[in-house]
C-alpha cells in the first residue's frame, strides 16, 4: 500500500532527527537541512544511506543532492547558475522547489533549497517509480 504524505514526512523526520541530532519540532517541512538543521557535507551521505534503509530503495550518486556541478563552467559563471545550469538542475532535481531561485541563482544559496519538503518530495517520487532492486 502506498505511503501517505504524512507517513513519508514522519519517516523523513525520524531519519533527520537521528542523523542530525535535532528535535522533532525543529524538523518542519520548510526547514533547510543546512541553514536550519545544521547539516554538514558528510551528513548528506548519512541521510542518503538512512533513507535507502528506511524506504528500501537505492539512491544513485547525484540523484538526491547535487554533485560536481559547481566547477562546470557551462553551468556556473561568477558564482551563479547559467541558463544551462538552471535547466540541468530542473531536470536532475525535480524534487527541489525552484520558485524564487531563478532570480537569485547564487550557488551559495542552492543548499537552502534542500529542505525537509524537498526530501519528502524526493521520497514520494522515488516510491512511485518502479525499482530495479532494493539496496544490496
Amino acid at each position, binding site marked *: 500500500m502506498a505511503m501517505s504524505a504524512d507517513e513519508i514526512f514522519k519517516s523523513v523526520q525520524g531519519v533527520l532527527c*537521528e*542523523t542530525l541530532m535535532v528535535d522533532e519540532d525543529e524538523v518542519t517541512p520548510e526547514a533547510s537541512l543546512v541553514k536550519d538543521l545544521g547539516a554538514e*557535507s*558528510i*551528513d548528506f*551521505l*548519512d541521510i*542518503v*544511506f538512512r533513507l*535507502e*534503509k528506511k524506504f528500501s530503495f537505492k539512491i544513485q*550518486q547525484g540523484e538526491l543532492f547535487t*554533485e*560536481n556541478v*559547481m*566547477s562546470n563552467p557551462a553551468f556556473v559563471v561568477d558564482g551563479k547558475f547559467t541558463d544551462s545550469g538552471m535547466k540541468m538542475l530542473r531536470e536532475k532535481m525535480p524534487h527541489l522547489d525552484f520558485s524564487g531561485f531563478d532570480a537569485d541563482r547564487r550557488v551559495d544559496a542552492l543548499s537552502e533549497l534542500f529542505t525537509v519538503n524537498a526530501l519528502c518530495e524526493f521520497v514520494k517520487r522515488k516510491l512511485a517509480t518502479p525499482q530495479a532492486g532494493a*539496496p544490496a
Partner: protein
Amino acid sequence: MRWLWIDSVVAFEPERRMAAVKNVSLAEEHLHDHFPPEGELPAQPIMPASLILEGMAQTAGILVGSVNAFREKVILAKVALFEMDEDVVAGQCLRYDAHIERLDPAGAAAEGTIERLDHRDGEWRSIGRASLMFSHIDQNRAGVEFPEHNFVFGPNFRVILESSGLSRFITPSQAPPSAKN
C-alpha cells in the same frame, strides 16, 4: 608504532566484516596521564575512550579501504554514535568488531561493537558500540587537491595487514618488496 591503536586483525570477511584486538598495557604512556595521582587520590590508569574510538575507527577504516584494495583515501568523517558502558584497564584486551552497513563511491557507513576480555575470568564482554561514517575524500572534495599517494594507508597499516596474514589485500604498487606475494 605511532598512532596505531590495534595490535592485530583476528577476523576478516572481505567487504563485510573485520575484527581486531588491542592489548592494553601499563607500558603505554597515556595510561600514566589518564589519570595521574591527585592529592590523596591514587593514580587511575584507564584506557581513554577517545583512543578506543580511534581503534574502532582504524578497524572499520581498514575494512572499508580493503574493499577497493586501498586505492581510496578513507577518512573518518562522522561519529554518529559512540557509547561505552565500562572502563578498560591495563591487562585487559579489547576487540573491535566492525561491519560495513553500506558502501558507495562517496563513502561508507560502518557499525561496530567493542568487547573486552578480562583474563581473570577469561570472558569476552560487550562494553560498547559505534556507528561511523567514512568519506572517500577524492570523491567528495571537488576542487581540493590531495597528495597522489595514499597517505591514509601508509607503512603502519601494512605492518598490521602483513602480521595478520592479510598482505594479499595490498595492491602491488603499495606493497614493499618483501610483501609482494
